[in-house]
């Protein structure tokens, strides 16, 4: 008879045992025993940016591309692209966005999803631009929590080695006007 997996009464210890051997038994306060196993899962998606592709390609050229509604009466401009206008429903066309904007809001994340924990702390910003009806979510770098405030001028920076991800652009505090 093979040995049964070790028994633990704390769930945290079960989790630690799974890291070691892949199986454990949890005994709860009623004495009920449950077999717990490790079950890994990973996958590579084949992800198309489809109608949003232009935005991600433009980041590699150091450009921010937004959407402008083609309906004359509407003309809504979006900082985060969308193929059709949410207000009037007309198709949009691509427009260049300014590379300078202001913090509409911001935060510093001291924790994050597992995939981003190693990058903490990091700043997130919603950036507003003159003449644009919606904002853009981005990382904010080269500054610390204590410097940040709503309305702070910021400017875009682009990755020299694009990964074709929204992380190819980020913002930094704007350099003073010359």
């Amino acid at each position: 008879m093979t040995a049964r997996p070790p028994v633990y009464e704390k769930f945290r210890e079960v989790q630690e045992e799974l890291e070691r051997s892949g199986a454990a038994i949890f005994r709860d306060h009623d004495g009920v025993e449950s077999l717990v196993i490790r079950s890994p899962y990973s996958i590579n998606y084949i992800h198309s940016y489809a109608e949003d592709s232009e935005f991600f390609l433009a980041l590699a050229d150091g450009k921010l591309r937004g959407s402008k509604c083609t309906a004359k009466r509407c003309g809504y401009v979006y900082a985060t692209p969308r193929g059709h206008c949410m207000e009037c429903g007309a198709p949009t066309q691509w427009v260049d966005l300014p590379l300078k904007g202001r913090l509409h809001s911001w935060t510093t994340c001291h924790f994050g999803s597992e995939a981003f924990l190693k990058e903490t702390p990091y700043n997130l910003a919603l950036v507003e631009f003159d003449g644009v009806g919606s904002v853009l979510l981005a990382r904010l770098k080269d500054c610390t929590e204590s410097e940040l405030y709503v309305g702070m001028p910021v400017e875009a920076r682009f990755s020299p080695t694009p990964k074709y991800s929204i992380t190819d652009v980020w913002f930094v505090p704007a350099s003073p006007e010359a």
Partner: protein
Amino acid sequence: MVTGGLTKFAKAHPAMDFRLMVRRAYDYALKGIPNLTKDRIDGTRISYFSDHFTRQLKAASMVQDYLGMNPKGSVRIEWGGATGGECFQAGYEAVASGRMDVCLAAGFETMSRVATWKGNEFIALASDTNYDFPLGGFYTGYYALMVIRHIYEYIRRTKFAGITDEREAQRRAIAEGQRIMSKVSVKNHLNALHNPYAQYPKRLTVEDVLRSEMISYPLTREQICTMSDGAAVAIFCDETRAREFTDKPIRIIGVGTGTDTMRLADRPFGKVPLMPREKPSDYADLKYPGVHSFRAGRAAGIEAYRMAGITNPNRELDFIELHDAYASSEIQTYEDLGLCKYGEGYDFVERGDPFLKKVDYGFPVPNAGAIPVNPSGGLIACGHPVGATGLMQGVFAFWQLQGTIRKHFGDRALQIPNARRGAIHSHAGTGSAVTVSILERGFRP
């Protein structure tokens, strides 16, 4: 609604999979009403949020199967954080439409199957995976962005309008906001001390909340709900049958839902949809909803109040169980639901309106009892097993209105005396979907 049941919400229930959790909640619901047997149930609505957590597609079919409900009709309900609230309404609608005489609404989530930060990653997949998730994929971060702006609009621009140094003024406004949000956290954790179903009941002070770990500035750990395992069920039927099953049925008198853009960044800057007692001039300078308020919550509230004939929720409701995934969103939601005007949410807490009269919170709450919010402890203290949460609120509201809190909690501290009407509020994403349902006592006490 004729009955409801719950499992205790817990960090993990390793001895029960999702099927058994639902079964336990179902057994509890049926226990008190002998005339309501399985053969009287015409069909089900079953909710859970994420296939990632269960790593089992069609998990709702497995619940249907385990409860022995085949071959009756069933639909799986999913709507992000509002999954449970949608399921509650789907159960009601199955009966209200005449399709079923008796409908079981059941919901669950088993979030313990992955580590906390992986769980946060799954939840963040409910944000745009092109534009939002790759930046850090973290819901607390999104809510922090919203509350920083909410504080800017409603504290910086009012209480600290006299300070010209922008950075200094905003810092002081944020500190003020954090202090007031902490009172919400204290309230919900303390209320939960009397709720045996709650995951994290505890006695805290404002200082404890402020000192707890910073998760995403300005939100600290104690201002944020946690991940949970749990299940909840509610059973609906028409009015004639209701009397056959219980002498204490609860009527559903209003339902509302609202939606908004998936991406926070796309929210418009327009006009406020008005509640009955509001005027356009109240919000002449307010750009709405922006990222500071939940237009979906307001739309859901307006629809539900209209159906229920409510024009003054503070006077016409006796309590609200609302979706406080964050202490900040509880304050934002007071305003969305018209419990106070936009901009008055922080004062609403300071005055004490959403607190219970009989509980000692350790600070003055002059208006306590005005309109208790989250008497159960809310998501912050009860936990948030997503697919069950909105149904849990429905069950707590049901027991409040029946006047049976003592029977189910073994403690009557949370029983709101003579509660006649209550609302439940369930909320998804960064406010991309919200449900509001209004329940009313359907019997003479």
